[in-house]
């Protein structure tokens, strides 16, 4: 039976994505490195502060890996949570693994410890860029129930590639935040079809923000992560300027579009209305060569 990535816990995802029994956790729950803030706020804390970090193997290659647990405060980044992620990334500069895998699932900064969380996220961003600059790819896997938003949405886009399922979502402000600030006419966060086709994995892949769309299965994420180990990212200034130019053209190309479907049509996808119904493999066939 295939194991759903969406339904799995962070620990189950790590066990399924990495080589069997290869994962060695750093600061495991028994170390009790917990948030100092939540207890003061009379709020339940987790032994691992909602993130698992450690080292293991992927297809025999040494990798570092982190997994955020959405079930604990929506995977939100607090001070300890962020420090564990930064520490893992900095460890990569010393141990030089083949890649760093980030199994993200996060609503962004943990509001209970907002200032510490914001600083932590900025430190994560800096650390991601340092690891990439050292020639070690940072690979994001996004397929959890809470998606990847806020500061972690930015972190994901700073990495070398994002592997995503349709259920995985990626963005800055989440649907509820947009509705609250701009009104239901702007974005109806209860319209699940609208939410998925706007922030879901298929749209993110077509816009070029995610590198590969996979089915919601831990085995599919593992296979795509193994493929991503072979990536040789172009970090030259020319490549960066090309990407900036392409991002700048998005508003010209798609500024008149009112819905993701309009963008898919503009990209040359035939019958774009059917895209949300397609399995990942069919979606990838239909949309090959038609990404922004």
């Amino acid at each position, binding site marked *: 039976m295939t194991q759903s990535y969406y339904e799995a*816990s962070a*620990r189950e995802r790590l066990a399924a994505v990495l080589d069997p029994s290869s994962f060695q956790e750093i600061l*495991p*729950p*028994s170390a009790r490195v917990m948030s100092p803030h939540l*207890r003061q706020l*009379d*709020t*339940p*804390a*987790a*032994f*691992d502060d*909602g993130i698992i970090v450690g080292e293991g193997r992927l297809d025999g290659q040494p990798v570092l890996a982190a997994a955020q*647990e959405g*079930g*604990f*405060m929506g995977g939100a980044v607090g001070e300890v949570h962020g420090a564990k992620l930064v520490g893992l990334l900095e460890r990569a500069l010393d141990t030089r693994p083949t890649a760093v895998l980030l199994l993200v699932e996060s609503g962004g900064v943990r509001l209970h410890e907002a200032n510490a969380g914001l600083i932590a996220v900025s430190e994560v961003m800096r650390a991601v860029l340092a690891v990439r600059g050292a020639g070690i790819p940072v690979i994001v896997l996004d397929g959890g129930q809470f998606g990847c938003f806020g500061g972690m949405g930015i972190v994901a886009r700073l990495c070398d590639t994002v592997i995503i399922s349709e259920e995985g979502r990626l963005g800055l402000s989440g649907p509820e935040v947009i509705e609250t600030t701009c009104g239901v006419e702007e974005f109806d966060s209860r319209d699940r079809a609208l939410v998925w086709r706007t922030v879901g994995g298929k749209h993110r892949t077509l816009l070029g923000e995610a590198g590969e769309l996979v089915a919601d299965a831990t085995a599919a994420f593992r296979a795509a992560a193994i493929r991503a180990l072979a990536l040789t990212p172009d970090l030259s200034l020319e490549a960066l300027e090309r990407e900036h130019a392409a991002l700048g053209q998005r508003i010209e190309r798609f500024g008149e579009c009112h819905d993701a479907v309009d963008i898919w049509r503009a990209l040359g996808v035939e019958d774009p209305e059917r895209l949300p119904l397609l399995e990942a493999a069919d979606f990838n066939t239909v949309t090959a060569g038609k990404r922004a």
Partner: protein
Amino acid sequence: METLKFEYRGGRPCNPAQASALAGVVGSGNLEILVEQEPLNGACAVEVVTAAVGFGAIWQAVLDDFFARHPLADVRISINDVGATPAVVSLRLDQAVNAFLGGTA
């Protein structure tokens, strides 16, 4: 928030497959349970940190049942709870102990 402590005696020494095991997640209606081997003069010590205040008697009953099923000695059980129901607590306790002793979680 409330912290509850329990201690059970008369358990049997166990031979765990791993020094510690975790089950569950700190989420609404759920809890996480950490089971660790520790020399406690034969005791099984349980500490519950729970968001639901005033349910000490129910915790006592659930943990009495648990200890009757799994009379463990020299084991520390640490729980972070966000209002899990007694059935969920029993399930997670069994999952954690199974993982600890080497069965499947």
